[in-house]
Every structure is written in structure tokens, then in C-alpha cells.
């Protein structure tokens, strides 16, 4: 296939921590407007994969191409600026700021020192904050301190902060962990809505949730891809059942 069709092209990616290969010779291709879910047992290397893409961990070898940019050589903030957003496994928000401020500060302008000193909150920014707060079900809590949100709301807020940046590739590490059944349903709807004009890479353990959102599923095991394909195909795959779904 022609590699330019993919928004993200990962080839021969390896990272080794003192000889232990957390990600081992991995190839992964994500298409435009695709919602991909990566599943796998604990310690499979899922989070490490996201760390590699967003530059938190440097690859030992291999290449990560986002559109036509090689990411492995860029600094974290540069990777973000090319259009990659990432949610952490544990909700990572600014607890001392209000929901409104959390969103406002994530707006992708005024990103330089001088720019931030003279940045003014235009009506357009406010409009964007309000719209995204609505999208992540937090309109009511807009002026609440973020520390007071429930765990699930914090997850949403972090997704909202990424949406403020309007990334072309959105990576979410276990977005529904700690959410109630109702919240999970809402999040599934949210993801189905926001993947309309961007690619989304989700890591998740909750198979019910995965079924609701996945276009395609990748199973990771010991840093390698065990299987890849549609949800039905994965669920009937013998090896996958053995190492992951079985227990």
C-alpha cells in the first residue's frame, strides 16, 4: 500500500529498557479518520507505544512517521505542534485551575513565551471553550475548580483539553477507566463524534466499550502485534483468546 495514505506509519519500532524490549519491532499503520483501539494484557507495551509516538520515550530504533514528518527526532512540544495530542493513563489536568481555565490554557495560540504574555482571550476562544465544555458534558462545572471533578469528569476534561488543540491524531490511554456505565456510554458517543475529522488511537481494556467504538483492533502482547483486524475477527482469534480475552 502507498504509505502516504496513512496518517501514522510506524515501522520496525523497538525500544529496549536495559535489554528488555517493551516494544519489539512493531509495525502499525493508522489511516485518516480511523478509530483504532489497541488492546492487550497489562505490561504489553501499550502505554510505552504512546510514549514513543509522543516523544516521552525515545525509540531505540525504527521510525514513526506522522503524515510526512519523522517524529522520533522531534522534541515533545514540537510533536504536539505537528498535530498529535495525547491523554495520559491517569487523568492529567491542572487541579488548581477551573475547568474553564484548563480548557483556555490548552488553546493552541500564545505558545511561545512572548506570545503567552500578550495573548488575549478573544470571543473566538471563549466560544471554543464553551463549545468544547458542552461536548465533554462539563458545561455545568465550567467555573468549578478541576480538583473537585469526579474521576470520570477529569477524564473528559483531559479529552476536552486535547480537543482545544484540534489535533489530527488523538491518542487516548484508557479513557474510560474509573467511569460508571452511564459515563462509558457517553464517552463512546463522544469518541464516535470526535473521530469524524481526525484519527483516534485508543488504548482500552473494557471490551464492551471497545466494541462500541473500534473500527479496527490491534492486539499487543509482549511488545509485539499478536493480531489485527475487525472486532469480530479478533474475538474469534485463538491466540488472542489464549493470551488475553480468555481470562
Amino acid at each position, binding site marked *: 500500500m502507498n504509505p502516504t495514505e496513512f496518517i501514522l506509519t510506524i515501522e520496525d519500532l523497538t525500544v529496549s529498557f536495559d535489554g528488555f524490549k517493551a516494544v519489539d519491532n512493531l509495525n502499525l499503520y493508522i489511516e485518516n479518520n480511523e478509530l483504532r483501539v489497541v488492546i492487550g494484557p497489562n505490561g504489553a507495551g501499550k502505554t510505552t507505544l504512546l510514549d514513543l509516538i509522543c516523544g516521552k520515550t525515545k525509540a531505540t530504533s525504527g521510525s514513526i512517521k506522522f503524515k510526512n514528518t519523522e517524529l522520533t527526532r522531534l522534541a515533545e512540544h514540537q510533536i504536539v505542534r505537528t498535530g498529535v495530542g495525547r491523554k495520559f493513563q491517569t487523568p492529567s489536568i491542572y487541579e488548581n485551575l477551573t475547568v474553564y*481555565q484548563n480548557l483556555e490554557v490548552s488553546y*493552541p495560540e500564545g505558545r511561545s513565551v512572548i506570545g503567552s504574555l500578550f495573548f488575549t482571550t478573544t470571543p473566538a476562544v471563549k466560544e471554543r471553550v464553551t463549545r468544547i465544555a458542552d461536548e465533554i458534558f462539563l458545561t455545568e462545572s465550567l467555573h468549578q475548580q478541576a480538583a473537585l471533578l469526579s474521576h470520570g469528569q477529569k477524564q473528559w476534561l483531559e479529552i476536552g483539553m486535547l480537543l482545544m488543540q484540534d489535533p489530527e491524531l488523538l491518542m487516548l490511554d484508557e479513557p474510560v477507566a474509573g467511569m460508571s456505565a452511564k459515563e462509558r456510554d457517553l464517552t463512546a458517543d463522544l469518541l464516535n463524534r470526535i473521530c469524524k475529522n481526525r484519527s483516534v488511537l485508543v488504548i482500552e481494556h473494557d471490551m464492551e466499550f471497545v466494541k462500541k467504538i473500534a473500527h479496527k483492533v490491534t492486539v499487543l502482547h509482549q511488545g509485539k502485534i499478536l493480531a489485527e483486524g475487525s472486532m469480530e475477527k479478533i474475538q474469534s482469534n485463538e491466540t488472542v483468546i489464549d493470551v488475553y480475552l480468555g481470562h
Partner: protein
Amino acid sequence: MNELSEKVLGGKQGALHLAILAVLLLVILPLCLDLFRLGLIGKYVTYAFVAISLVLLWGNGGILSLGQGMFFGLGGYCMAMFLKLEASDPISTKIQTTPGLPDFMDWNQIVELPWFWEPFKSLPLTLLLVLVVPVLLAFIIGMAMFTRRVGGVYFSIITQAIALILSILIVGQQGYTGGVNGITDLKTLSGWDIRTDSAKYCLYFMNAGLLILCIMLSRFILTSKFGMLLLAMRDKEERVRFSGYDVARFKIFIFCVAAMISAIGGAMFTLQIGFMSPSFVGIVPSIEMVIFAAVGGRMSLIGAVYGTLLVNFGKTIFSETYPELWLFLMGGLFIAVVMFFPDGLAGIYEKYAPHCSFSMLRARWLKKVPKVTGERQ
């Protein structure tokens, strides 16, 4: 109010608090105190520069520098070098082996002015260097630390070590720096005798005015997006980084601003007190400054000023009678503040002051603002 003045003053309440401080420093204290006591206040106010620099750096940015004394000291030394050269004209130093050199150089058998003293013959250059030298040092330290992601306790310890090294260096290089005595016997600033009563009043007002300006500059920074990013970095540095910000640059910048503000305080100290010595550079003064900020409230620019004034007042009164006890008291005070009043005096004020109704109104007003989009002002 237009956008800029709003930002610089920090809203109605901020403007009110700033005005009260300005009236206190510029009107009430000069009217009530004799020149000697006013001079003491002037000295405390120079420390307040460092305290507000710590509000920016530590309170808001979460970067605890335990070496702010070095910037205060460098600013002070730069100023003192100019005054010393002026005080060492060939006529008043004609009994020296080499007339025209600062006295301590002559005592140390130095016969030629060291190259790094040359720029301090010029006042404009000196004023520039008062700011540039400390900022440059802060920039170098910042580059070395923040781009390598050294933070937290490590940063504090390293800044402390650098302050210590600098003070040892100054003490050790007696011939170039005046050693442990510092640079003393300063007399005139471009011919203006700084020891006269009128000069002392004048310098006091300049000093207080500069403090107010520095508070306004800090307010501008804190009310901008930069200020919000500082809080965000203090909370979750990684999240800021992975939102597309080059965290190191922001930290370097605020560290440099803090150094500059501290240096202004140091230079004003030299002018008002008439000397500068290594005892303002090392670890002890640096930690004292942190205590001033903590007592006043590390999140509050104005609070830090009051904290500095009060602690120093206490120090002056107490150490006259029980000099030994003071250090223990100060240590105890610090622990008490950190444990029971993490936001210091400003925090207590916010909580109990009778302005509740006013602040509640403000909170309510603030809540409404984002909804009436674009209709502000």
C-alpha cells in the same frame, strides 16, 4: 478600565490593595517615621523585591530557588562598583601606593584596575549591567538546569550551592571584590552625595516607587496566559509539555525575570545603605528571603511585601534584645507558616478579612463574565 491597566493592576481589588500599599510606603511611613527608621523600612523594601520575585518563581511557578540572594548581591555589587570607583578618585586616594584604585585593591597589592571593573566607570553602563549581569547568570543556570529537566529539590539545592560558591568566591578574591568586608565607603552617585538626608529621602521614594513598578510588572505576567501556564506547570508539568509548550523556555524566562527584580532590590540596597557585602549573597540571606515570601504569602505579591516588612520589623526589635533567640524564632515561624498557613498572611487575610462581601460580589461577577461573551469592559 482598558485591557492593559486591568492586567497591570490586577482588577479592582488588586488596584485597591496596591494603592493601599503605595499610600503606606509613600505617604504614611515617611510622615510618621524619623529618617533613621524610614531608612530601615527602605532596607526592608529592598528585600521585598526578592520576596516578590519568589512569589513569581516559587508561589506561582513552583520553582523554589534557594539562591535568590546571589541576584540581589550581584545587582548590589554592580551598583557598588560604580560608586566605589567614583569614591576612589586620585585625589582622595593619594596616600595609596597606586592612587585612583579602590582602597582594598591597593591593600592587596593590585596596581591596575581589573578589566571587569572597567565598565563600571560609566553610569549608564552600570545601570545596564545591574540588570544584565544577574539576568545573564540566571539565563545560564536556567539553560543548564531547565533544559535538562532538573527541577524540584534538585534545583533548590543546586541554586543554593551556586549562591554559596559565589559568596565564597567573593570572599576569597579580596583584591578584586573587597572580600568579606564587601565594598564600603561609598559616597556619591555621579557627584550626588547619597549620604545626605535629602538624598536618603529621595532614594527611599525611588526605591518604593520601583517596588510598586515591579509589582505591576509581575501582575502583568501573572494575569497573562503566561501566569496561568506557570500555575499549570506547577501542577502538571508533563501536561503542559504535551500541550505543545516548551516548558524549559518558560521556566528560564521567569527565572530571569525573578533575577532581574531581585537585582533591582540589591542595587537599591547599595544606594540606600551605602555598602554591599558577601553576607547578602550566600545561603542564609537567600533562605531568609524565602521565609519573608512564605510568611507574607507565596501566592500574593502584595502579601510578600507585608511579610518582608513584618518579619524584618520583628527581627530588628527582637534581635536587639535577644539576638541568639531570633534565629530559632525565625525557624519556628517558617515551620508554623508552612504547616498551618501555607498561603501566609495573604491567605489569612483572604479568609477572615471584612471584605468578604466585596470579594463575594467579585466572585459572582467573575462567574458571569465568560457567559456574556465579548461584552466585557
